[in-house]
């Protein structure tokens, strides 16, 4: 057996990896946005809503968190069209899945964040005459945001790695691109080494950028 490591193909197919990477980041970004909306809404419902609504939220979180993400991807991609009778694009299906998945994790993050806003600060908001909605918009939400921002950054990096699973339903993201190159060049080792490097380096750069953003958004935060 005589296998010569050769990375030349990488340059030939660099655009496949590049566009795959762009799509991966986009998928993670859209999913965390939708996930934040889901997570925040459900966290508020969980904290302030009726007991039975609380149970619905808990059930959603439990189900999603206790299923393998891969299974969720298959369930939604094959399951929803067969029930609803409409087919949808693999990318849309994956965004839906990853958003629901992110939402279930972020409920916990936002719930803890809302709970960490001191009741005294909310009283101060009442004392100057803010209404319930204003207290949420101008006091609770921004105070909570400062608390949860580091967790959101971590969640985003996690989702970025999870986008790799979209390859199983042929979403043309980074791992799918790598697979395509492997199939067409038979250079499995080189492809996976390169792609692993891309995930590592890009993940690291994204995290560094997010930490920088946190510092801009939360000046003077004592940690």
């Amino acid at each position, binding site marked *: 057996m005589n296998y010569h490591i050769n990375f030349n193909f990488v340059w030939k197919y660099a655009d496949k990896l590049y566009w795959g990477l762009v799509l991966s980041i986009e998928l993670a970004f859209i999913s965390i946005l939708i996930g934040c909306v889901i997570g925040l809404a459900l966290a508020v419902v969980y904290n302030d809503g009726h007991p039975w609504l609380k149970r619905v939220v808990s059930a959603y979180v439990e189900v999603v968190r206790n299923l393998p993400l891969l299974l969720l991807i298959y369930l939604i991609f094959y399951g929803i069209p067969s029930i609803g009778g409409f087919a949808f694009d693999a990318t849309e299906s994956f965004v839906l899945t990853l958003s629901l998945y992110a939402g279930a994790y972020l409920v916990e993050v936002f719930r803890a964040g809302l709970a960490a806003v*001191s009741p*005294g*600060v909310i*009283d*101060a*908001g*009442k*004392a*100057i*005459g*803010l*209404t*319930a909605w*204003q207290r949420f918009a*101008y*006091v609770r939400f*921004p*105070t909570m*945001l*400062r608390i949860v921002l580091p967790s959101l950054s971590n969640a985003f990096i996690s989702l970025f790695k999870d986008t790799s699973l979209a390859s199983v339903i042929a979403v043309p993201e980074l791992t799918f691109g790598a697979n395509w190159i492997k199939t067409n060049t038979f250079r499995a080792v080189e492809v996976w080494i390169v792609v692993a490097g891309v995930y590592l380096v890009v993940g690291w750069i994204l995290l560094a950028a997010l930490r920088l953003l946190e510092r801009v958004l*939360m*000046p*003077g*935060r*004592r940690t």
Partner: protein
Amino acid sequence: MTDPLVRITQVKKSFGSTLVLDGVDLDVPKGEVVVVIGPSGSGKTTLLRCINALETYDDGSIKVDGVEIGFRGEPGGPRKRRSDGELARIRADIGMVFQQFNLFPHLTAVENVMLGLTKVRGMPPAQAREKALHWLDRVGLSQKTANLPSQLSGGQQQRVGIARAVAMDPKVLLLDEITSALDPELVGEVLSVVRGLAAEGMTMVVVTHEMTFARDVGTQLVFMDHGHKIAEGPPNEILRRSDNERLRSFLSRIEFRQDG
């Protein structure tokens, strides 16, 4: 004969099975400073929180400028708890300064003061900023207006807390042990701000353990114990020749600090 600005009659309040306020009466005439003293757990904080509807009361009446705080309708008749919107409007005219400062942690000093002016009073931001800066200057913080609370000392944070409350032009200002969380050397700078407000005729209800301060700025001193008002009168009279056993034993445990 004008009605007192704040009139509290037979207010009762329980937390679960604990009766915390057991029929408290209190009048605060306009321009006067009523100082409330009493042992821990006697209901001082609860009374203040009832005055600006941070707590509900079960029975009796609290009126500020003739408006019943907790309820619509008269005592005795059918009364309904007020809605959030009504409470917000009522609270906007009642200022409160807290023991733990409770500044909005994500806003700078000037933004802390501006928030109520822009969102509650509907002031344009430029005008609100001007007013906020004026008050921060008044409390001696013109150099710290762009600092976040985490970048301020306790005494500075509390002065922002005072500026935030008085900038709303409240009819009455409630102060709940506003120096208790401060290092002793920072107490004086906060109390001197309050002395200034008292001199200008701000109506206040002040809960404090600073007896020198209480004697100097108080027009009335009220001693509470176990949810009751035990004694009431001019501070010098109450502090000097009290014939009440519980008040005497309370005062003997309180140190008189000169920096107050």
